[in-house]
């Protein structure tokens, strides 16, 4: 009897660990049955397109969450980076604009970490409010910078456009953005699982006090997670506007919750310490598939927003129970 119980327990915990995969499979099968268009070539391309910006932001968010914190400022960062970068393409050239955009993401992340460190914020709740506030600040800066108008980049005279490439070009079989994603994923995965700093971040998230008393510099980890998150938000912003060739100063709206949702649904716990960028990839896949599926089924985007909120709550609740 005891053995039966423990087998069931093991099975249940495995299910919970790989729930996201199960759900993806489930979703794919059901949707394909209801709406065969789901598996069409154009739809799959569509899915890959949506994948791009969100995965970048979510990968960055993964680090913050593993570290035991949270970052709600990504929306604002995306807004700011998008409008600034786009506006600099013409006057400064593509590459400088790109680099400045990425640097700006790093600056935002650094600023976040400085505020959190200097205030002595140690809980996720405190970080939530501080970064939420900073999102407002960054968004406001974006609005001011762009005077509220959507910015375009006109046809770039150079023969090769970096941004066009990011937006829709291909390297052989794969789209450029996909390749960028793979490269960044590899780098981040190696960082997270194979470097000392990555380990320090996990330990900080696992138990800040124990980590600190073992000689780990948690302030360093905190700076790292927010800088990574800011940088990836910038990457996401660039991929996003490259695709649609415009940047409204509210372009980033909603990305913070989608990213958190993707991370949590992927199986990284909000309590910190454990998690993986690979899991986040699955989480993003699920989120993207889900909205694609809902689109095909004709569900309005507002209802989808509500569903996102509901699933976030469910995922948090489930995560909380798992850790209890």
């Amino acid at each position, binding site marked *: 009897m005891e053995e039966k119980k423990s087998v069931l327990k093991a099975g249940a915990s495995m299910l919970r660990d790989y729930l996201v995969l199960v759900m993806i499979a489930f979703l794919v099968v059901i949707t394909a049955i209801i709406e065969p268009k789901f598996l069409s070539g154009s739809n799959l391309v569509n899915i890959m397109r949506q994948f791009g910006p969100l995965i970048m932001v979510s990968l960055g968010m993964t680090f913050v969450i593993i570290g035991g914190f949270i970052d709600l400022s990504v929306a604002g960062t995306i807004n700011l980076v998008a409008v600034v970068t786009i506006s600099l393409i013409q006057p400064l050239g593509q590459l400088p604009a790109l680099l400045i955009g990425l640097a700006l993401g790093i600056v935002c992340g650094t600023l976040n970490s400085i505020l959190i460190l200097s205030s002595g914020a140690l809980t996720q709740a405190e970080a939530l409010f501080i970064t939420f506030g900073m999102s407002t600040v960054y968004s406001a800066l974006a609005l001011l910078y762009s005077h509220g108008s959507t910015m375009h980049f006109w046809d770039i005279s150079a023969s090769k456009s970096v941004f066009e490439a990011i937006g829709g070009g291909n390297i052989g079989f794969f789209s450029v953005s996909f390749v960028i994603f793979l490269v960044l994923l590899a780098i981040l995965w190696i960082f997270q699982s*194979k*470097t*000392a700093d990555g*380990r320090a971040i*996990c330990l900080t998230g*696992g138990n800040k006090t*124990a980590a600190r008393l*073992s*000689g780990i*510099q948690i302030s360093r980890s905190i700076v790292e997670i927010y800088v990574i998150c800011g940088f990836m938000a910038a990457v996401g912003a660039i991929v996003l506007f490259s695709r649609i060739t415009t940047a409204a100063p509210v372009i980033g709206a909603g990305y913070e919750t989608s990213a958190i949702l993707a991370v949590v649904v992927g199986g990284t716990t909000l309590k910190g310490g454990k998690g993986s960028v690979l899991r986040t990839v699955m989480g993003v896949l699920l989120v993207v598939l889900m909205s694609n599926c809902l689109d095909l089924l004709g569900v309005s985007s507002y209802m989808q927003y509500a569903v996102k909120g509901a699933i976030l709550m469910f995922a948090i609740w489930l995560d909380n129970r798992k850790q209890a």
Partner: protein
Amino acid sequence: MDTVQSEYILSIKDVSKSFPGVRALDRVSLDVRRGTVHGIVGENGAGKSTLMKILSGVYQKDSGTIIFDGQIIDHTTPHESMKRGLAIIYQELNLVNTMSVGENIFLGRFREMKGMRGTHAKAKELLENIGSKVSTTKLVSDLSVSEKQMVEIAKALSFKSKLIIMDEPSSSLTSEEMVELAKIIRQLKEQGISIIYISHKLDEIFEFCDIVSVMRDGHVIDTKPKSEFTRNELIMKMIGRTIENEYPERPRNVGDTLLEVRSINTRKLHDVSFTIRKGEILGLVGLVGAGRTEIVRALFGADKVRGHKVLIDGKPVHIRNPKDAKDAGFGFIPEDRKFQGLVLPFSVESNISMASIPRFTKFGFIRKSLEKNIAAQQVKSLSIKTPSTRTAVNNLSGGNQQKCIVGRWLEISPKIFIMDEPTRGIDVGAKYEIYTLMKEIAEKGGAIILISSELPEVLNMSNRVLTIFEGRITGEFIPETTPADRIMSAALGIVGGES
């Protein structure tokens, strides 16, 4: 008609309580006569506070009978206990800091007291009855410790208690306040209220108590009217005979001065300075709250303390945080291994390796195989019982968890190893293993600063002890050649030896 009131207000018979790995109470029996002041003395870890917590309903006993005021008590809550007439005033005060005195006294009974006015009026009355002039509208956080104790007493009285347990009531009272307390105790006695008085201060025991019980290692050793005890007898019974083969021999290889600490000053600590030599085990002896943990935390950089000097091998070191301390050669086993020492959901391997990450990292990259070796080696040499190094450390027993922390630091061979309650909550076998480890560390030239609430442990393991009382070092002794009661007296702040 009237049932004859038993002469005892409280009867405890064969009560036992165990926690994982530790038998806190072992068939404890105790009777408290009505209208008496019954003193309980014993070392930290003797079981006094466990017993009190069972009486008040915070813990539930494993076995045995408790009869209070003629009623058999089984499975109770703190609130029910209060209502029944058994009040306890803890050492760690049970008040809401953000609320006023009056509201704290009647916490949860606002309606019963007819609102704010009634609350404060009755509270004022209660406080005046015990001679306290504290204003009932003052916030508890603004009170001194003694004033807080008065509030707790008033709270106990508000329940028309028949038995009041006072746990170290005088630990922070001035001598004038002590006079007041004496008056109160006398008043309570006149009102027929029984009191259990827990204290280390033998003067008070002899002054206030009618009957005294001595506890040690979860047992009640003796219960006698106070007049039949001598002071020495009490101390000896508290400490017990030191059982030599429970502990390995002390390390013999003591060398030159390794560490010198000068003038640690904080709110709690006053001008703490000491030295420690190579190969030495230095014990810090004192009551709970005396400042021992604060001293080592200041040393290790765990708390933000400035202005003191630390010299290692004669050279000054600046320690601002634990990393600096680690780099300077310190190791640290914290007091609370679960919340401060371990990352519970992580593996044994991760927990062991976490202080030595640079050792298995090359060019910033972790070499998993090196890490595995480190963990495996520590598991082997410390005999850590675990299914595998990948097991979550949460699943290990207390002793093995502690060994993981020890192993973590051993890996980097610290020069100075701080151990704060290293054997708390650990079974006897594992304890001996840790003692042996400590001896080995010392014999290899390391120094250990040992904090332990078990006096026999710290006296038997240390080459030298410092007694700490109210944030000050009150004495330095060699346990091997000093009688235990002299050391104990210094730890109790008794100046000039024993009577």
